């Protein structure tokens, strides 16, 4: 069963077609990469999948239920509740809040108590808050951030901020995780750790993962399949070895080969 399937997804900004006829299909448990030169439309595709942008044409189906079609489109928070979580290319943490609160906010959708218990701090409020806190700390432990739970998110080192963003995304209990350049700005050692972490959470939380990345070592190392996007169109699709040899991909990244060289 396909976890995610898009059909002819297209978005236009005025006269510019940013992404055109974007067709991808992810099977359960897969780890798929989405690569492409700068400005190819990778993040725009993510924004359509998460409901931040409404596509001009095309449909998205998630676990066989439509997320977005010509007649209706879900809000980003509704899509999150269906089970798609994401991280951002330029980290978007709640900077002034503590590490713990960042994760707690992502548990929001599971909170059952209403406004009145919130106003009066009833027993129900305390019970649920304790539960949320325990779950959040457990998750932070997996990411090695539990010792920094009271620190403000903005004061964390860069690599930890990236990790926290992944932890926060996982707190929404997703089936599909979209990672937008998780290794951007990391050194090779941190990237290596990140690869291990991605593999670990994928098994631990039985996730399907779609990954945008510029770091080829990481993409080729962890992804089972790769889609290549250039000028808003998918130009190639296959296993890492196939992609590495594909002339169209080489052309997109390195430019056309000179015939009279």
């Amino acid at each position: 069963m396909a976890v995610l399937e898009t059909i002819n997804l297209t978005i236009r900004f005025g006269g510019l077609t940013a992404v055109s006829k974007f067709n991808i299909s992810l099977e359960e448990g897969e780890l798929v990469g989405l690569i492409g030169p700068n400005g190819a439309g990778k993040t725009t595709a993510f924004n359509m999948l998460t409901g931040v942008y409404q596509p001009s044409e095309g449909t998205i189906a998630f676990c066989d239920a439509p997320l977005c079609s010509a007649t209706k489109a879900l809000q980003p928070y509704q899509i999150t509740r269906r089970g798609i979580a994401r991280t951002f290319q330029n980290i978007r943490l709640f900077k002034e809040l503590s590490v713990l609160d960042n994760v707690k906010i992502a548990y929001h959708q599971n909170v059952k108590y209403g406004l009145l218990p919130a106003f009066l701090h009833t027993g129900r409020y305390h019970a649920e808050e304790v539960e949320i806190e325990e779950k959040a700390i457990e998750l932070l432990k997996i990411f090695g951030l539990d010792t920094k739970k009271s620190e403000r998110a903005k004061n964390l080192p860069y690599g930890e901020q990236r990790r926290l963003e992944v932890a926060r995304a996982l707190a929404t209990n997703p089936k599909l995780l979209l990672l937008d350049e998780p290794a951007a700005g990391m050194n090779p050692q941190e990237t290596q750790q990140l690869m291990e972490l991605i593999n670990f959470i994928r098994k631990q939380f039985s996730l399907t993962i779609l990954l945008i990345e510029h770091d080829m070592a990481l993409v080729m190392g962890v992804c089972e399949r790769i889609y290549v996007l250039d000028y808003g169109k998918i130009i190639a699709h296959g296993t890492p070895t196939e992609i590495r040899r594909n002339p169209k991909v080489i052309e997109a990244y390195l430019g056309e080969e000179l015939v009279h060289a």
Partner: protein
Amino acid sequence: MAKRFSALLQFALVLALGYAIQMAMDAGMINRYYAHVMTVMAIFVVGAVSLNLINGICGQFSLGHAGFMAVGAYTAAIITKNPDLILPAIFTGNVRFILATLLGGMTAAFVGFLVGLPSLRLRGDYLAIVTLGFGEIIRILLLNWDFVGGASGYFGLVRHTNFFAAFLLSIITITIIRNFIQSSHGRACVSIREDEIAAETMGVPTTRYKVIAFVIASFFAGTAGSMMAHLTQMVTPASFTFILSIELLLMVVLGGLGSITGSIGAAIFLTYAAEALRAFRAYRMILYSLLLILIMLFRPKGLLGTQELSYGLLKESFKSLRTRWQRKKNDDITAAAE
């Protein structure tokens, strides 16, 4: 359980303090002028803390708080002045006043819902413009409504508000808003302030929470309006102008956007300052503008920022002051040695 008991005990102790002050006022130990000023302070605390929920906690920008106070004030005034209108005549005296205050708050909350639902979809400056316009519309409507006296105002209200009533309202407001902020719903509001797109992607229905915060704040603004009306024993459209909204905004900004204790302190201080500088009343707007500009230049997050004033914070800042002082002393010693 112990937590809840100590919270209740704290609440009871604070109320007892308020009641003791009221008894001192009744016994003539505090002169009537100061009693009046203290009551006004308590009412402004309600106004500032509730505005902080919109502007500081939720990160939206409302300039129409005076409008909601006006809605609450007029609704409550109509109810207490007409013994058989809206509420049945069996409710009299203070009971009628309390119910009228609640109804004033609810009407303000309802109006807040109507204004908020379309305008909170807008971001940033647009909301400020819409709420500013709303405040003026309410004022002009009241100005032309003969039933409540039009421009000359609605007179002859009974003086129901005393210090304890206003104090009680301010404690209830602070408790409820603080509890709200500490809950998951409150965290959802704070996440909107921090990063709206990220909040939405984390499963927070942002528009709904902006409206919820707006409605809660409008409710308390309405009750504050009712308190004010039954303190001054009259309501006029002129008491709810744009300037009142700016005064409340100044309290929130001075105390720190997002800091409840900051708003309380700033409301008390600015109410006192307005009284102390009564002789220079004509220059008030110049002073306010200057103060706002200075805060924005030198302390854009307000005096307390998003932090709350607590024993821990005091200890921390005292420690940092001491280390700074010691470092300076050491520097002086080395300088002298050289």
